[in-house]
């Protein structure tokens, strides 16, 4: 086995809830909502010693031209509830839930993550997202949407408040001393937070789980998002899974950490990726083409073009050339879809250029720009490509999204993982029990950086009792 100075490849898996990443028409495609699907995928990747299982979130069904978008897989569970179920049927796998900081309140979110961390024995992670649109806000009783500029200030304060809540219980505040008749220490859970977005005080109900704080994940692309990740997150998801682009994103984000007194190892960068594995590179390439084509039906091709063009293009032939008409930059045909939220005018220009250069039909273009598989090849090819990507500073690992639910990572786990293990870049077995252990993160958040009242109280007590 090679010496262990090689960087470890961190692996996570996602069961996709929307977008055209799932070949739902395949006979092997199972339910996207039944518990069996979630359990099956989670147990598969736990067998492959993955770091964690991840669920994305979207709090409103997407709409296209004023109607519910019907072409992609749709219908998903509430994340923390689904992950609490998975905590019962897995033993080591981390469990990461996306929860929006705009449509929630710190008390509840902190409580639910503390619960998940307890129920799972220290395996919880929170992907803090800040999607802010008024469209989603219509599902919430107080409107609950924000100006774009305010969403990261709210998210940062939200996270700060959550940390104060987690820290409001000292390590041994839960005494349960029957002989002395003392169940809790006086004042356990007491907190008060006053800020721009939250003015809250009282008693928090839930002593934190083994990790103290769940692992914090961020997945924004903007400058503000990267800065938030550098100051506050421990994992960042990205869409940058082409090695050249990924490297510059990687460098940029890692560089920002020093400003906050953090080292590059304190934040792991995990792009979203997919892998198509077959016996030979040729077979895998053919299968990947087939998948890409299935993911972009003629209807999907037109819908994607409409989303970018901002106008009704239903009269166009998906197998014909791109429309000659100009995009409507302000229209919002596709709602609730973060991918096409901004820069549509620029996207349209690039797409047209590409289509003209390569003489692509509408459908071929959409396949080309969207259906790209990250790792395609024989198990050896895929293992080497993943290893190289990580060793050359493109990523710390990947979030793998299978194109089939729930069996889409079977081949990867059975055939690629053993090769990564042979290369010495993936664990043979879990060496710790918490997600922080798997990710190689420090045990507990550093008190100097986020010293809530509980942390201070614990320190004070230690000092006085010493």
């Amino acid at each position, binding site marked *: 086995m090679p010496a262990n100075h090689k960087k470890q490849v961190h692996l996570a898996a996602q069961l996709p809830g929307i977008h055209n990443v799932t070949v739902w028409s395949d006979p092997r495609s199972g339910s996207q909502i039944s518990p069996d699907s979630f359990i099956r995928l989670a147990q598969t990747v736990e067998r492959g010693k993955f770091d964690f299982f991840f669920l994305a979130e979207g709090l409103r069904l997407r709409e296209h031209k004023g109607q519910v978008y019907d072409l992609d897989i749709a219908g998903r569970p509430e994340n923390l509830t689904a992950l609490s*179920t998975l905590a019962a049927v897995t033993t080591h796998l981390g469990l990461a839930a996306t929860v929006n900081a705009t449509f929630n309140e710190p008390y509840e979110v902190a409580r639910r993550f503390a619960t998940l961390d307890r129920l799972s024995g220290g395996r919880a992670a929170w992907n803090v997202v800040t999607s802010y649109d008024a469209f989603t806000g219509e599902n919430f009783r107080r409107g609950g949407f924000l100006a774009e500029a305010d969403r990261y200030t709210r998210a940062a304060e939200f996270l700060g408040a959550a940390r104060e809540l987690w820290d409001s219980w000292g390590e041994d505040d*839960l005494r349960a001393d029957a002989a002395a*008749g003392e169940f809790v220490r006086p004042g356990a859970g007491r907190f008060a937070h006053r800020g721009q977005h939250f003015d809250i005080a009282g008693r928090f109900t839930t002593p934190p789980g083994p990790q103290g704080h769940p692992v914090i994940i961020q997945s924004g692309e903007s400058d503000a998002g990267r800065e938030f990740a550098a100051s506050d997150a421990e994992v960042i998801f990205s869409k940058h899974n082409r090695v050249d682009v990924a490297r510059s994103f990687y460098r940029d984000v890692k560089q920002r950490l020093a400003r906050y007194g953090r080292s590059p190892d304190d934040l792991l960068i995990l792009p979203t990726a997919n892998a198509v594995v077959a016996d030979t590179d040729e077979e895998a390439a053919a299968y990947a083409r087939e998948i890409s084509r299935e993911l972009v039906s003629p209807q999907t091709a037109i819908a994607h073009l409409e989303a970018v063009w901002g106008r009704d293009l239903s009269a166009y032939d998906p197998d014909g050339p791109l429309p000659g008409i100009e995009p409507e930059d302000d229209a919002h045909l596709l709602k609730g879809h973060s991918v096409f939220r901004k820069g549509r005018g620029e996207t349209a220009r690039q797409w047209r250029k590409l289509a003209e250069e390569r003489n692509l039909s509408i459908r071929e273009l959409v396949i080309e720009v969207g259906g790209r598989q990250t790792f395609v090849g024989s198990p050896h090819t895929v293992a080497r490509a993943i290893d190289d990507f990580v060793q050359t500073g493109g990523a710390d690992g990947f979030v793998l999204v299978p194109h089939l639910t729930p069996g889409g990572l079977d081949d990867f786990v059975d055939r690629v993982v053993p090769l990564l293990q042979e290369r010495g870049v993936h664990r043979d077995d879990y060496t710790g029990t918490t997600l922080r252990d798997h990710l190689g993160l420090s045990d507990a958040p550093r008190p100097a950086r986020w010293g809530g009242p509980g942390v201070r109280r614990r320190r004070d007590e230690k000092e006085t009792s010493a």
Partner: protein
Amino acid sequence: MTGTNGTHDSNGAHDSNGTPGSKSAHDSNGAPGSKGAHGSNGAHTKGASGTPLHLAVALDGAGWHPAAWREQGARPGELLTAAYWAGLVAEAERGLLDFVTFEDALGLQSAAFHRPDDRTDQVRGSVDAVLLAAHLAPLTTRIGLVPTTNVTHTEPFHLAIGIATLDHAAEGRAGWRPQISSRAADAAHFGRRTTPLLTEEDVTDSELIAARLRELFAEGAEVVEAVRRLWDSWDDDAEIRDAATGRFIDRDKVHHIDFQGTGFSVKGPSITPRSPQGQPPVVSLAHASTPYEFAALGSDVVHITPHDRAGTTAIVAQVAEAVERTGRDVEARPLRIFADLLVLLDDEPGAAAERLARLDETAGAELTSDAQVFAGTPAELADLLLDRRSAGLDGFRLRPGTLPHDLTAITRGLVPELQRRGVFRTEYESTTLRGHLRLQRPAGRYEAAG
């Protein structure tokens, strides 16, 4: 009529609702409802009145006596661990109970109903009940799981998708107990609004409290309605996977609910497809006219707290009046009435009373409860339940005084006693909570409209 008699005598028909409507073909890979066979037809579980008794258990901390956590056999250091709850629910399932409830609140427990306290000598600390129930779902197979949530501070949308997800996870065994948040201090945990600060005088009289909280109950009823509409916002057959037209769902079968309440609105549809039961049973606890109305508007099961037979008759009549006032059609939507009892059980006559006295001494005060406190033998409790039931009840929710002692006494003492008397099931005859409760699976309300 409040659905105590006559509404569920169609023996066996109830279990057709174990299967969630017409699901698309792909769902055959392990979707709910495939546990088709159910053994007995229930003939020998019928008592004199022709219907079996329903039995639920309320789980909370170390039990409902404030000193329960100090008893021998209690596991006070483990009350917030998964293993503790898994053991209790497994025991309840062994006893073939209809369901277990999990208490919850968005604030620390307190001795007084209406305000927090600084006591350190009682159980404090809790975990989120919906997540706890979801965790227990794959560890159990038949028993209903009914978490409590508040409906004052939590968004209706989050509530709807949480309970629907629990119903998916438990393959049709989820229930929901919506509860208004009556402590003003809990509102300060959210900082978005204030709620009435109840006084000592308010809490001496359940009608007085109910009057003070009337607006919160009215809002709560709207939340329940919004949640129920979200549960119906996907028709059962909305998922079509029609490769020919490229459509995964039929958008005509997914509905905006456009709910307009007095103080909030929800657009919909849900992000979660309709769950196995369609509408997981809604359970509420009620002590006075306003909450009876809350139950009449939105619940499938109401827990009441009579202290004797006459009180049972009187409250059942009050619930019937509330049903009447709200115009609910109980033929179409039966309302099951359960009485709550806080129980301490020992086989030896007098032993439970002695235990209660000892617990009271440890606690430094006599046990008080909104529910009647019963200390006796399982056989004595069986007598009481059967007598009480004939005053118009469908079943009981028992609150074990100490855990696991009084839970085990229920499952291994009371249940066999009731089975001997032919009034309790000897095996589960259905796979869903609705099935256990003999409630039909309703069609989605938007389905006919298309």
